[in-house]
């Protein structure tokens, strides 16, 4: 028996860095989902967290292919570069990618200008997501949310239970012990799975850097046409953007800390065009990541309300 013991190995060789440990945990979670569920799906938002999640999934099932499809909820107001990136990655990695657009958005021309950020998000994002999950009869959906993103997420489970209406009830969540994840659901119910729960923004960036993961170029600084509204820099990504009186897009060196719908995502002025420089800016920054998302401004605890309704 060639049993290796600490005597001939040495603990040092088995020491794992925090990122290796987080990676192993995420892989464990993903495998658990594939083993326990019949129809898992990965919600792919094209952002950096999704890119990390996808990378981890490829690791988890290597040398096999991903045993589930990717689902992108397209509000139709995403940055063009996001969609290009999405399609290229899907092709290069031979991914099964589904796109979901809420028909109402197209039929009624729903947009963030006329319908307000709240109303628009509900229809284009939350409703679309619910429709896609119901149509696909998915019983588990991976999401790239992290607990450090927002106060109300600190208590989120890795396996987060949703009722048949995709609603999240804070009182109806299961205690989660050890690495035993209870994925039992009745028909119509589902679980949202967050394999990146224990990652912080810094972990994500550092992992992207170390693993050389490709991300949407919008994260890197470049000259982009923007207008300034209420102190927020908004990129004019296409001609659907409604300029107000006196507004004139100007080229500025900007980048994005998070990516969403372009009219609702604030850019930051920056010259950081490499990963180390982005990380540097992040570390020196004094404001939290979600600040760039217009959607959170509404009220304290608004994320929580969104979650109850079914948006993450």
């Amino acid at each position, binding site marked *: 028996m*060639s*049993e*290796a013991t*600490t005597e001939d*190995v040495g*603990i040092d*060789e*088995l*020491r*794992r*860095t*925090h990122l290796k*440990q987080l990676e*192993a*945990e995420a892989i*464990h979670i993903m*495998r*658990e989902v*594939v*083993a326990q569920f019949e129809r898992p799906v990965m919600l792919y938002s094209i952002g950096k967290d999704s890119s990390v999640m996808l990378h981890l999934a*490829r*690791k*988890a*099932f*290597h*040398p*096999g292919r991903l045993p589930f499809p990717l689902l992108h909820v397209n509000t139709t107001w995403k940055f063009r570069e996001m969609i290009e990136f999405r399609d290229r990655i899907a092709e290069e990695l031979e991914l099964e990618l589904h796109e979901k657009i809420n028909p109402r958005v197209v039929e009624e021309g729903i947009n963030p200008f006329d319908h307000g950020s709240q109303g628009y998000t509900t229809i284009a994002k939350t409703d679309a997501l619910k429709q896609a999950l119901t149509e696909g009869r998915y019983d588990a959906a991976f999401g790239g949310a992290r*607990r*450090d993103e927002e*106060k*109300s997420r*600190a*208590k989120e489970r890795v396996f987060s239970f949703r009722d048949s209406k995709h609603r999240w009830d*804070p009182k109806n969540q*299961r*205690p*989660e*012990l*050890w*690495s*035993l994840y209870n994925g*039992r*659901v009745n028909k119509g119910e589902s679980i949202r799975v967050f394999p990146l*729960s224990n990652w*912080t*923004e*810094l*972990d994500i960036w*550092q992992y992207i*850097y170390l693993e050389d993961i490709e991300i949407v170029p919008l994260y890197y600084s470049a000259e982009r046409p923007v207008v300034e509204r209420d102190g927020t820099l908004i990129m004019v990504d296409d001609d659907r953007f409604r300029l107000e009186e006196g507004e004139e897009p100007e080229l500025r060196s900007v980048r994005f800390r998070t990516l969403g719908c372009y009219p609702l995502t604030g850019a930051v002025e920056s010259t950081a065009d490499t990963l*180390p*420089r982005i*990380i*540097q800016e992040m*570390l*020196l*920054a*004094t*404001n*939290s990541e979600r600040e760039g998302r217009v959607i959170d401004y509404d009220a304290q605890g608004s994320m929580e309300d969104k979650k109850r309704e079914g948006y993450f």
Partner: protein
Amino acid sequence: MSHQSDLIATDIEGYLAEHEDKDLLRFLTCGSVDDGKSTLIGRLLHDSHMIYEDQLEAVKADSTTQGSTGGELDLSLLMDGLKAEREQGITIDVAYRYFSTKRRKFIIADTPGHVQYTRNMVTGASTAQLAVVMVDARHGVLPQTKRHSTIAHLLGIKHVVVAINKMDLVDWSQQAFDQIRKEYEQFTAELGATFDAYFLPMSALTGDNVVNPSENMPWFDGVPLMEHLETVDVASDRDYDRLRLPVQLVSRPDLDFRGFQGTIASGVLRPGDRVTVLPSGVSSTIERIVTFDGDQDLAGPGDAVTVTLTDEIDVSRGDVFVHDPKSMQRAHKVDAMLVWMAETPLRTGASYLLQSTGGLSNAHVPTIRYQLDMDTLDRVEPEKLELNSIARVAVEVDREFLFDPYERNRTTGSFILVDRLTNATVAAGMVVGKSSAWDQEAIETLQRAVSLVTPTERATRFAQQPATILLTGLTGAGKSTIAKALERRLFDSGRVTVRLDGQNVRQGVSRDLGFTAPDRSENVRRVAEVGRLLNDQGIIAIAAMLAPDAEDRERARDVVGSHRFIEVHVDTPMEVCRERDPGGLYSALENGAVIDLPGVSSTYDRPTDPDLVTTDWDRTADEAAEEIVDLMRERGMLRGGTPAPADDPDGGEVNTGRPD
């Protein structure tokens, strides 16, 4: 997120390189309401610069409207999550927080200290390597402190920081600190916990000894909390010796590849290792350890791996790869500590789903053995098991359950119970071991009659400290012969002994028992109990019996009390035993008889850590007995005494030849 390092601004790549190598510590904070837990966590985050200004602004605003610090910055407000809780001013769930320093990334499981604390704390503790137990310096060790520590102990946490907080309110008094430390140490001794405990005087409010050393307490020479968290050694908590690789998934991307995927719970794995898959018991060899980043030549605890084998054998989800197939236990019925987590109480006898690394099985709880009263820590007779109660129970699993005792392995020793209808997780379980007669509790109403003669009086009269000497070994090893020689010697030097020979015991006390493994186990238990009775009355017991099961011998040690127990391995080579063949069993077996003969047709667990190894083969039985006497003398069991000649009381006994 201004991690404070000049490198960030001057040399970001250098900074990143420095942070690449960090490791991870998961810890738990527990304390009663108002002990200062939220303030402490807020301060750790604040002082390690993990709080953004916009978050801080929000807290400042909240401090004025909701804070309890009279408008000053109330760091505890950073810590509350959900709206409802914020309004009630309490936290009612486990919240996870993150911060990091140059050396480590930290995951804090923040658990509240009131009503629902058991469920939440158990949840948080299940993944924690260290617990910070908050004690208010003004109040000292309270019942809550004890409960929290008991749970930490139960969940297998090895490292504890006893954070004695609010030292500013007791004038930074060393005396107060020392007093609490003493109380806490006394308590953990009672609890039987062997924590690696760090006692720390602190003020979360002023920051003394949180991140920066306290100037107010020059008498304290330890490091502040942060440094302790950064340096406490947790790597050696891991078990690198016993391989456990539970299979999560079988990967079959194409006809040529068949890999088994899972996370190594313990032990170390290399290509070329001979492994056995349990429960089937089929063996094979590890061919490759496959990862996305190339094949690995070594994998260890916590690694998520894919392995391939050199042979095509049946392996499915829930199976476990091990090196030593005998090292893992299996049983249909196990004893476990169970924490009840649902509103509806446990229904004994009802069917639940048991989820473990072995997958899902049907299980029920036939018996609650006792409940832990969380106020007194006494064992009480339970009426029913309700939300937040902890009990020792028997669990019956409908297919053989593969496990390690939780004490040895937190992954392969744990399980959850799931309600079949609601699918809710209703309980968390930690396996103690196989259920057997050893676990049977005596009837509660019985009372122990206390002798009027004290142990000291007996020790003086008999000139000895009582002990139970267990001579274990194969059939024909010479156990009985050495036992008799030992008895002679002790008797001749005036000691009072009783010899419990396996053969004799079987003709009386254990007449009802056969030779199956459970019966042998019960026989050992009875002899151990008799040994204890004798020891309680000052008498030395000499037990000569095969006792092939290591666990039985361990349990015998527990029954007798480890300070009184001497395990002697009579280690005579198998050839010699065969040659001697006292009852003709070896030859009978060779001739095709079906007998359970430990060491030949069933297992004899060689003692791994006996108190003494001897034999009567290359030395005389008398010399062997002398070695035992020497050991007893060394342990202070034989003091003074006058030789008093006497005859052998029960000379002519029959040797039936059956192994006991």
